[in-house]
């Protein structure tokens, strides 16, 4: 296929406008600097989501009629924010909230971008956690409760540690999605990697700039995926190797 593409009649033109090494080199530092904003956005968002999503999942897993209103709210939240397009929430909050010009409300587009991503991905990630919680056999909770642990203690010491371990791979999957969606914050005018690449493209009309942004995104997800694999494997080894660790 590579041969077919590189020998097509229009390859030189394609190469010049998509795979231009000189453009790549000259744009890289600027776009890489802008990419730091993406990193900042997803690091902050992910740190918050790890907790908000877990809280939402726990609320949703509460059993008993007393908790029905809380459960219903948690379900409504997850349904709504998984259903709405991310770009719509970002536009709504990112353009809308600062436009209110109410004192005390932040006007930073990056701030509102992070808020939007947290709202959306809390809904996604809570579903992942919930699947994890439900995958822990009820006998585990029964064993914990029969020893005299409270519901909260059983959840914190027995159910959640097992649930979280099981969902690390799908959790990472959602976080990769989040990292890519940080590019959407660019529509608000925050100069992140995609926005910077767009600016460069319109300056020299060369699409190689997008390729620069693409490589940066990929460069961060691949090591993250390998790191997660390693974490999961290490945990498995620990449990099966017993005292050898």
């Amino acid at each position: 296929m590579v041969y077919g593409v590189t020998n097509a009649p229009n390859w030189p033109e394609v190469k010049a406008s998509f795979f231009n090494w000189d453009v790549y080199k000259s744009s890289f530092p600027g776009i890489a600097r802008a990419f730091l904003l993406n990193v900042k956005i997803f690091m902050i968002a992910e740190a918050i989501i790890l907790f908000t999503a877990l809280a939402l999942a726990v609320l949703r897993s509460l059993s008993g009629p007393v908790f029905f209103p809380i459960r219903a709210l948690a379900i409504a939240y997850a349904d709504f924010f998984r259903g709405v397009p991310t770009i719509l929430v970002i536009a709504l909050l990112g353009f809308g909230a600062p436009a209110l010009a109410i004192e005390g409300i932040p006007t930073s587009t990056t701030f509102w971008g992070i808020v939007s991503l947290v709202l959306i991905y809390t809904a996604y990630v809570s579903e992942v956690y919930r699947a994890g919680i439900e995958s822990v056999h009820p006998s585990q909770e029964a064993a914990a409760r029969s020893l005299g642990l409270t519901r909260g203690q059983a959840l914190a010491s027995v159910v959640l540690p097992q649930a979280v371990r099981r969902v690390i791979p799908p959790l990472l999957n959602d976080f990769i999605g989040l990292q890519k969606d940080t590019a959407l914050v660019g529509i608000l005018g925050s100069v992140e990697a995609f926005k910077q690449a767009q600016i460069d493209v319109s300056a020299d009309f060369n699409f190689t700039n997008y390729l620069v942004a693409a490589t940066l995104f990929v460069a961060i997800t691949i090591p993250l995926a390998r790191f997660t694999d390693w974490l999961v494997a290490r945990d498995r080894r620990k449990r099966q190797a017993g005292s050898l660790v």
Partner: protein
Amino acid sequence: MNAIELSGVRKSFGKNEVLRGIDLDVAEHEVVCLIGASGSGKSTLLRCVNLLEPIDDGRIVVRGEELTARGVDVNRVRRGIGIVFQSYNLFPHMSVLENVTLAPRKALRLSRRDAAAQATELLSRFGLADKRDDYPDRLSGGQQQRVAIVRALAMRPEVMLLDEVTSALDPELVAEVLRVIRELADGGMTMLIATHEMGFARDIAGRVCFLDAGVILEQGPPERIFTSPEHARTRQFLDRIIEAGRL
């Protein structure tokens, strides 16, 4: 004072009435075995005694305290009642030591050091000292079940409930677990034991109760129940057990 008093205990799962009025007293230091076919309600009865299953009707009194009264702190009550399950239910993400020290630390607020000291002593007593830092996945079924017993004992319970604790074990591992239970009985532990090990029940129990379709059909000293049962159902059950070579 009786260790356990059950009166008129009823429990249904949907339309299926599993316990249909159970009356049973267990004296202090007494060992009572529950026998009966699968589905006769043995496990449910044990799970009701420490309120893992809420009962629909009746009274449960453990060491003078009515568990079924309103406003009883179930967490405090459960600390005094140890239960061991057929499928061990050890916590797979914790080492043996962590399994045994979790509840004493969280529920009894023992310091990490005190809980570990107590756990180590119990583990040594039951020949598990060298398994302290292993994870459950690495242990044999017999070892896991012994750890589960130690985990329950670490709460210093006054009553132990054993729910077919040898049923999931390979035959050659059954003896090591039964030995532990016998040791507890010799130490004066009050126990209510659901079991399919008739030889063991005959040997260890002060009294055997035959459960059938949610009621205690007959009870008495093991010798009498096993040799001259009154009810046809009991005889039928024992005949099948003998046929299977389990008595």
